[in-house]
């Protein structure tokens, strides 16, 4: 097992690592404001792999950018709060933020493997990340870089390789090594394996899982691939049109989804094992957020919508059973979808 440095903050297992509350984010475009994230609330606990699933345009990547405070105009935070342990991330000035980011929260995005600097070796890029945040000398940083490469399954000799000499999977591993470099409490993985083939995807996911078990950091895993999340995440939040419609432990999402959208989503991709079922896609397409549907945003595509209610009244996000939350009028009337 490879030794990593002591954590700078002591993690309390009884408080969330990250608490996002009523978050609202807008993109101001020429055609009006798009409310990409509208009143999103969730917590991520120590040691947890928290999955955030949704289709393109549902606002999941915007959340990742907002948490790391990487949101740039025309994107604006309009309301809500983000707490990292006992620190208010919204109040943080850019100087503190620069030191905080990467040391406590790091992010790996889908295109990260293409964001490596082509004229520097991957070793140099890992060492740079370490030295930018810690008073390590070159030898210490290099030793650490070697450890990190080994952790993510890259051969030690590769420390002097340039990214064009590495395959897509290796480059994404190198980026994960950089994300782990400062031993952060939270790692945000935004579609980290979408551009990769399934075999490489599984290898990387299993490595991430092993590392998570070894070091106990938390993960916010963002993807459109619900079947992947059900396998890897502890809890899953389902996003639709800027809102979270359901949060539950992954086996509950898989076995007994409460929101009609989750139910339809779980039934819209074929399974590789078990009986072959006739599948249907969800009618219509995700709404335009410049003028989202009134009431429940899913109602125009929902087959079990209650006439007169769902199109007028926005459903309340409420507890349906232990650890299981959903926003649907059917649940308020005591009926199950």
């Amino acid at each position, binding site marked *: 097992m490879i030794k990593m440095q002591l954590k700078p903050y002591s993690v309390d297992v009884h408080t969330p690592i990250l608490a996002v509350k009523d978050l609202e984010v807008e993109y101001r475009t020429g055609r009006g404001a798009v409310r990409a994230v509208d009143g999103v609330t969730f917590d991520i606990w120590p040691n947890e792999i928290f999955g955030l699933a949704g*289709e*393109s345009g549902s606002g999941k990547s915007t959340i990742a950018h907002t948490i790391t405070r990487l949101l740039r105009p025309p994107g604006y935070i309009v309301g809500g709060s983000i707490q990292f342990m006992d620190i208010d991330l919204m109040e943080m000035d850019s100087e503190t933020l620069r030191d905080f980011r990467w040391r406590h929260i790091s992010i790996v995005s889908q295109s990260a493997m293409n964001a490596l600097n082509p004229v520097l070796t991957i070793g140099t890029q890992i060492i740079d990340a370490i030295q930018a945040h810690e008073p390590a000398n070159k030898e210490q940083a290099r030793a650490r870089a070697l450890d990190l490469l080994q952790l993510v399954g890259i051969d030690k000799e590769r420390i002097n390789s340039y990214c064009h000499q590495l*395959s897509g*999977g*290796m480059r994404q591993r190198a980026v994960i090594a950089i994300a782990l470099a400062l031993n952060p409490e939270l790692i945000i993985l935004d579609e980290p394996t979408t551009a990769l*083939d*399934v*075999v*490489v*995807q*599984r290898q990387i996911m*299993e490595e991430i*899982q092993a590392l998570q078990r070894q070091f106990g950091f938390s993960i916010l895993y963002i993807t*459109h*691939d*619900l*079947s*992947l999340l*059900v*396998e*890897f995440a502890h809890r899953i939040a389902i996003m639709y049109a800027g809102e979270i419609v359901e949060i539950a432990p992954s*086996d509950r999402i*898989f076995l007994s989804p409460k929101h009609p959208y989750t139910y*339809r*989503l779980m039934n*819209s*991709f*074929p*399974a*590789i*094992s*078990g009986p*072959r079922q006739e*599948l*249907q*896609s*969800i009618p219509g*397409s*995700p709404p335009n957020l410049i003028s989202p549907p009134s009431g429940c945003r899913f109602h125009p595509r929902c087959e079990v919508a209650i006439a007169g209610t769902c199109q007028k009244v926005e459903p309340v996000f409420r507890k349906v059973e232990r650890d299981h939350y959903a926003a649907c009028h059917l649940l308020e009337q005591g009926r199950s979808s």
Partner: protein
Amino acid sequence: MTEDGVPILEARNLVKHFHIGGMLSRQVVRAVQDVSLSLYRGHVTALVGESGSGKSTIARMLVRLYQPTEGEILYKGENVLKSRGRQAMLRYRSRVQMIFQDPFSSLNPVHTVEHQLKRPLLIHRRTRSKKEMEERLQELLFTVACTPQYDFLSKYPHQLSGGQRQRVAIARALAVEPEIILADEPISMLDVSIRMGILNLMELLRDEKDISFLYVTHDLASARYFADRILVMYAGHMVEAAPSEELTQNPQHPYTQLLLSSVPDPARGLRTRSEIKAKGEVPNLSAVTVGCPFAPRCPFVMPKCQESMPPAIALSGDRWVRCYLHEEGTAI
């Protein structure tokens, strides 16, 4: 398989080499090596593999966008590679059409849906009057469930959703009433909630119009759902062929086993991890290799695997596998 058992399109021993790095370079990428396959009427064949396995190259050779380096393509028994010229190509393409992965770039952004659908009808002279043309456009859009049709005809691609664009691309392929449609990753760029709609539409076309599909994909689960038969590609070679259920529930080639155990499966959860472990990555296609391309990664590798490529060995139940582990079977 089909009742008469005669393929409408057949590829025999296809080879495709790409020369890269300029005119004087000798570097060759061996994208497809000795691949044979048959497509039957009203039958869906899936070609499954990872990126770089050669599956799209095969589809492009079959629609004659690429000229094969070696091998034959037979349409109803006639070698189409021998016939050249515009007329021959037009005739062939009116039988064999293709749908591409990205409906955002396969439709011309400066033209309306009406224009995109009229083009094949005009080029292939499928309609005799203005009235007939209009009826045909209505009918095509109705077939792919883009209704009300008048609403779609005047729209530009950017005004349509991804799923609608792919439907228009399918309507365009249908315009010439093809017998065969080669669909290259037709759903992988679409949102998950609408993917099944496109697969179900293609299934309907197979059932109602008896169209033969070649479904090129990296997604084994969707291949199991849509295809009758699955062919697995690895590094330019076809390594296994079997009816979909048999292939996905009882894979025989070690690579197919690796691929299957890598597919996310919520039902399996993490209680069992991938049963087969393979090290390393897909080989470099520029190197000249002897033996099985999967040998360097294969957990069951034997000395002879590195010496020669195993032949296609027939197994029971209309399937075959290219692997020495099954040598007690008969070579075909």
